[in-house]
């Protein structure tokens, strides 16, 4: 059984701390063109324990913004943008099929993070497989 919770920002409210089940995956839905969105994500990241970054954090970006970012990343958080783009980033295209596909991919990541993959694979291992170790360089050569 999979529980999903939406939150505007971290940290989560203190009241429900005891009843909350273990968190397996944190997905940040980012709009790279919106200053507020980036600020909110940046500040929320500060509240996460460093262990979470070993495979339990994932960024979801809508693709229009991703493309636009590649062409003129004028946002103030350019460096942050590039860091975001290095983690497991799912880009969602705005079609219904695209949203479905992104949902399926999230589910695959979640299956591994929750420890339910058929042959035991840790979230850390999966993140090491999918990590983009070089920034994409779009200059023509």
């Amino acid at each position, binding site marked *: 059984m999979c529980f999903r919770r939406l939150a505007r920002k971290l940290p989560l409210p203190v009241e429900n701390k005891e009843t909350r089940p273990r968190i397996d995956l944190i997905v940040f839905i980012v709009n790279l063109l919106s200053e507020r969105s980036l600020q909110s994500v940046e500040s929320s990241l500060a509240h996460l324990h460093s262990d979470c970054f070993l495979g339990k954090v994932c960024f979801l970006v809508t693709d229009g913004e991703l493309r636009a970012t590649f062409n003129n990343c004028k946002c103030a958080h350019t460096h942050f943008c590039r860091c975001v783009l290095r983690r497991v980033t*799912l880009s969602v295209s705005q079609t219904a099929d*695209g949203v479905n*596909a992104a949902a399926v*991919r999230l589910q695959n990541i979640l299956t591994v993070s929750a420890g339910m993959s058929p042959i035991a*694979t840790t979230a850390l291992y999966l993140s090491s497989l999918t990590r983009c170790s070089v920034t994409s360089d779009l200059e*023509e050569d």
Partner: protein
Amino acid sequence: MADLSNLAGLVSEPSGEIDSSVSSVSNRSLRLAEKEKRKGVADPFGLAVKYLSQVEAGTVVRGNDELERNMVRVETVALSKGLPPEVITMLLDLALSLNAGTANCTRVLKFLLPATVVPQEAIVKGVSWLCVGKMPMNAQVLFVRWVLTVFDLIDCKDDLRSIYGFIFSFVTEENLFPFICHLLYLLTMWEHVHSYRVRKLLDIQAKMGRQPFLTQLLALYKVFRPDLVTLSLPSRARTGFKNHNSTWKVALCAVQRKNKSAVLADQSLSLDVKEKPSSRKRKLHHLAIPPLSSAFDSNSNKKVFRLQELRSFKELLENIHNIELPAQMGSLLGSALALHYLDCVQDESAFLRLNFWLGHSLQEEFLLCPVDGSSDNTSEACRFLSTILFTQQFLQEGFSSTESFLYKFLSVWDGCLLRPQILDLLSDIPLMPSFYMHKLLFEPLKQLYFTSTVFFKCSVIECLNSMLVKWLTWHSVSASEGGLDISLNSNSTITMTLSGFMDSVMELVRFVGLLASEGLRLENCHVLLLNQTLAFYETVCDMFLKYSLPLIIMPPAGVFYPALFATDSISVDRLGYIMFRYRKNLTLAKKQEQQREQTFHISRNTYKEFNRNLQAMVNSMWNSWWCIPGSDIEIDKDLIALSKVAEPWCRFDLIHHPALFSYAIEFHQRTGKYWNWYMEFLFNQGFDGLNNFIQTNTGHGSTLNSQEDGQPKSQP
């Protein structure tokens, strides 16, 4: 004198025609009524044209109702059917001479839609009016944009080419500069490139900086005269010439479609590319591949033939040295005839222009604007990519602009949009140095692969298999031409040695090995994924024998063991075949190494790996002893005992293997216990791979299916 009288005749009443017909009314009333009716219908347009042709300089415009009426009449006809060539000449002259005022100049230009053809004299006259210099700037810009829009409809461009110098002189006008560059780009031929023109362009570039249109024009100059243009220019363009035809595009499409019944087109030689309906609102029209076929009366004393006028292969062959390329290079993509031309002639300027056009269209469509959800949008994009695929497969090589687009697109792709087309295009990517492979190809693919469904994983492995086959085929074709220094396709500047090539292939195979072994783990050895992987290794195992590439790479353990212990029989059979082929390749390689001093050398590790795998397989399947101490799959005896399986050591042999057990039972039910008969029975089920494997490695096997080298083994 004759001229003056003509003029006098023109100045006379516009209704002179009716007067002359009225005089015969008294005699033949019936015929007159018919004539009247016919003329009544045809006349308004003809009258209007005649009136407008007589408008002189200094005519009062404001409040001139008659002028306005005639303009409206002509405009209506233009927007519905398009205008015949003579009328276009006349109207262009009227507009650009400013005889009807400056407001009417832009107005006329806006509805100047040709029905069939634009005579080149009209354009030449127009350029001469441009030289007079009285037109306001926006009218000048509009005129040049109009020329660019109707460029493909101009009947012959020889005169335009002869006034190339005059057109070139306009590059100094800042406002006109981008459009003039585009026009020059379309007109330039070898003889037009001179050092003084290059110098002028470089001066302008120094002042204005690197503008995309200027760079493209210089790139084209460079193709024709590389000695004159020495600076380095990109071979692919990110931004191309913008489509300047927005003002006329929709109306022109409508007119052309109406006249399409009059257009002859030989559909058998060109792919039918559908025009998009003008009713659909779309802001960006990048993907509409302009139609290539359009027929008009060809002028027989032309020097060059337009590509769209050729109807048959024979015509192409006869005129192959006089071909002129269309302005919209994209229209070549769907036509087989045009592609034949491109392939034979290997015209660098054509490839350059096509790459520019492609790069620009792909960039605009997929990278700069977000995809909205409409299915029209996606199906149009789908068709566009399919056309590119068709072209690439026809030409047997990929375009460099498609390649660079794919690298950029992969990093923003969600793995779902237009998946089959993108993966097919990916498999067309030519060879690249191994350093770039990781950065450009592997990283984005890994991210997508490991988080997607098993079917996506299968598609990716299939795509990479197809890529490998293409690279190997290319190598075996070009290596046979001798020499170790193999240069890539004619349009690329990278050269590659044999060892560089082998590095790249090795990287690719290792990468697929990683993808496959991890993928199989994540998907619990899904049977489809396993089969795609084994198909890949069927290509890999024969690299030496089939493609003469001295490289032998064994499958990793993460692929070998899932296949060996698979529960479906096809996988086991395929593995048998693969091991059989590996053995053949290795034996031949060893023999060649010993006989002659070859430059290649198969490392001892490869042999060791193969022997290990071979041992594991033969021991499991033939000797009924899979758990050998010291092997990769040794499991502690106590653990095995815990499973409470009777006789665990023979559980993976030919009888008890989970994939083959059903056959053993079936055989037993039919005949009893004879071992040789069982072997025959089993291999008659179509397990050729397994049969060959058992035969070569153990000397036993079914005599009915003899080996490839035709040596029948006798029964023990």
